């Protein structure tokens, strides 16, 4: 494990030198195809927020509530299972609608991958992607990222804090739920916490929040660790070692086993931290990656 960490470090220093990854892909595939998955994700993130805001802004009530818990078209309840877990730990047996809602959400992420929440739904992703982009452009190095295990400790401690205080203690400061709620219901001083996350990712730790600290990401990672939908480096024979995928990947350590056959024979990325964001598919000029299922282990 520490051996892998060492080589990750050297990989890291190489890929962080790439200021503008994906240029080759743009030249080969055209701008639109080289940004397809990125655009789709932004559309997904923005339209989810738009669905919530259509009610208060336009009077078109499709979805009510926010990402913590919502009601779609007055029939479909959806609840964040991480919040429900905290609520259970705090000692409140929830009403059946919340249980149903959390069950439906959990079932979806069990199939498509837990961290699809992070890359396709969570608005904080736009903030940290922005910080990562700026960090690359400015060529900022240095700083200190905490261990990637921090998120699991934090996950455990947030649940413990809920149990000890008898309230959703983490939700007082949770930047993720705070940002989505602020966007839907109003900011107050929440922008300060969002700015703190941005600056942390920009100046202190590369991909620090989403990749190392966020307990919500850890929770969804665990939830979807056996998920069906996966990215595969199916045409890894064509890889020309440009390292662009490593440069854009929010969890670069997940690529190596699949792309370079390190510790596994097949080309499917099975690491639970892969967010299925598809950015590696975008930036690869050789079309090495594709979105597929965990069962599909074919190459080419």
């Amino acid at each position: 494990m520490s051996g892998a960490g060492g080589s990750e470090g050297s990989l890291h220093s190489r890929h962080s030198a790439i200021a503008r990854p994906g240029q080759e892909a743009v030249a080969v595939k055209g701008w639109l195809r080289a940004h397809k998955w990125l655009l789709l994700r932004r559309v997904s993130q923005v339209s989810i927020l738009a669905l919530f805001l259509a009610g208060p802004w336009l009077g078109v009530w499709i979805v009510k509530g926010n990402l913590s818990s919502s009601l779609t078209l007055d029939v479909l309840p959806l609840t964040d299972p991480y919040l429900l877990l905290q609520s259970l730990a705090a000692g409140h047996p929830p009403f059946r609608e919340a249980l149903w809602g959390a069950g439906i959400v959990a079932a979806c992420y069990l199939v498509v991958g837990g961290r699809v929440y992070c890359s396709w739904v969570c608005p904080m992703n736009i903030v940290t992607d922005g910080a990562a982009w700026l960090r690359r452009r400015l060529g900022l190095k240095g700083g200190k990222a905490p261990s990637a295990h921090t998120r699991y400790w934090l996950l455990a401690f947030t649940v413990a804090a809920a149990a000890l205080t008898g309230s959703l203690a983490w939700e007082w400061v949770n930047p993720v739920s705070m940002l989505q709620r602020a966007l839907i219901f109003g900011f107050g001083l929440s922008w300060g916490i969002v700015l703190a996350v941005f600056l942390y990712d920009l100046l202190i730790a590369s991909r620090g929040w989403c990749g190392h600290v966020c307990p919500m990401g850890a929770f969804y990672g665990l939830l979807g660790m056996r998920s069906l939908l996966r990215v595969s480096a199916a045409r890894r024979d064509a890889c020309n070692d440009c390292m662009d995928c490593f440069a854009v990947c929010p969890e670069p350590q997940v690529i190596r086993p699949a792309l370079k056959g390190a510790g596994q024979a097949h080309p499917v990325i099975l690491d639970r931290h892969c967010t299925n964001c598809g950015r590696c598919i975008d930036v690869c000029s050789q079309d090495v990656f594709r979105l597929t299922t965990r069962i599909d282990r074919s190459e080419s």
Partner: protein
Amino acid sequence: MINQRPAEPASQVPLRSRRRFLKEMAGAAGGACLLSLGAGMIAAEAAARPATTLRPPGALAEADFLAACVRCGLCVRDCPYDTLRLAELGDNVATGTPYFEARAVPCEMCEDVPCVAACPTGALDHDLTDIAKARMGLAVLIDHETCLNFLGLRCDVCYRVCPLIDHAITLELVHNPRSDRHAMMLPTVHSDACTGCGKCEHACVLPEAAIRVLPHRLAQGKAAEHYRKGWEEKERAGGSLIGEQTQLPMRGLEDRSYGDTRIAPEQRPGLPGGGLDSGWKP
């Protein structure tokens, strides 16, 4: 990193990596512990919300409410009068939890209680179907010095707007000692009926409301359990428990009706005579 160091015996490599692993773990655990401890402390500190902020109808007791509410805002969306708000960071109310301030927008006490129906977690108790049974707080006529009715005027606005008029607020007739010939109609809140909707506080005509809805813990006293009210005991027993008491005459007031204790008003020139036979005419 390892390659840059001079060669070392193979047996030391696992030891090194173990040490590194433990160090990393300790750092991660320590950092995470501090972060969540901080969050817990902020939570405990901020759990005391301002007395002017009220929870929606059916809200569980504050400690249970903070465990149950997932901060989704569904109650806020289903409130037809935009009474409820989700607390934003800096509002001094647990971030993301619903509340309202009666002086700004009171609860209109919808008969179908849509906010409670919308709550997915039961933080708003679904057993509350009769809005008259809601207990969001308790109205208190907190400032007798400025209340117009206490000055002997007929404002009555808090009484008139009360959705449970004559139950939650009544006007109690009391002699006005200043004019000595009028009544004061004192707005009086009854805790067994008041829902804490805040319509009275909202409607109070003064620049600062003289009647306010407060949390029960601030608004209500508690009688000691061993206290007995003599008149109630008497009624329950169907007669005095200590024998009939003799009414002794009051010296100097023998010709007055019982309870009229004013000292010789008829002997003071310039003042009208008091009592029922004062001869005063409107």
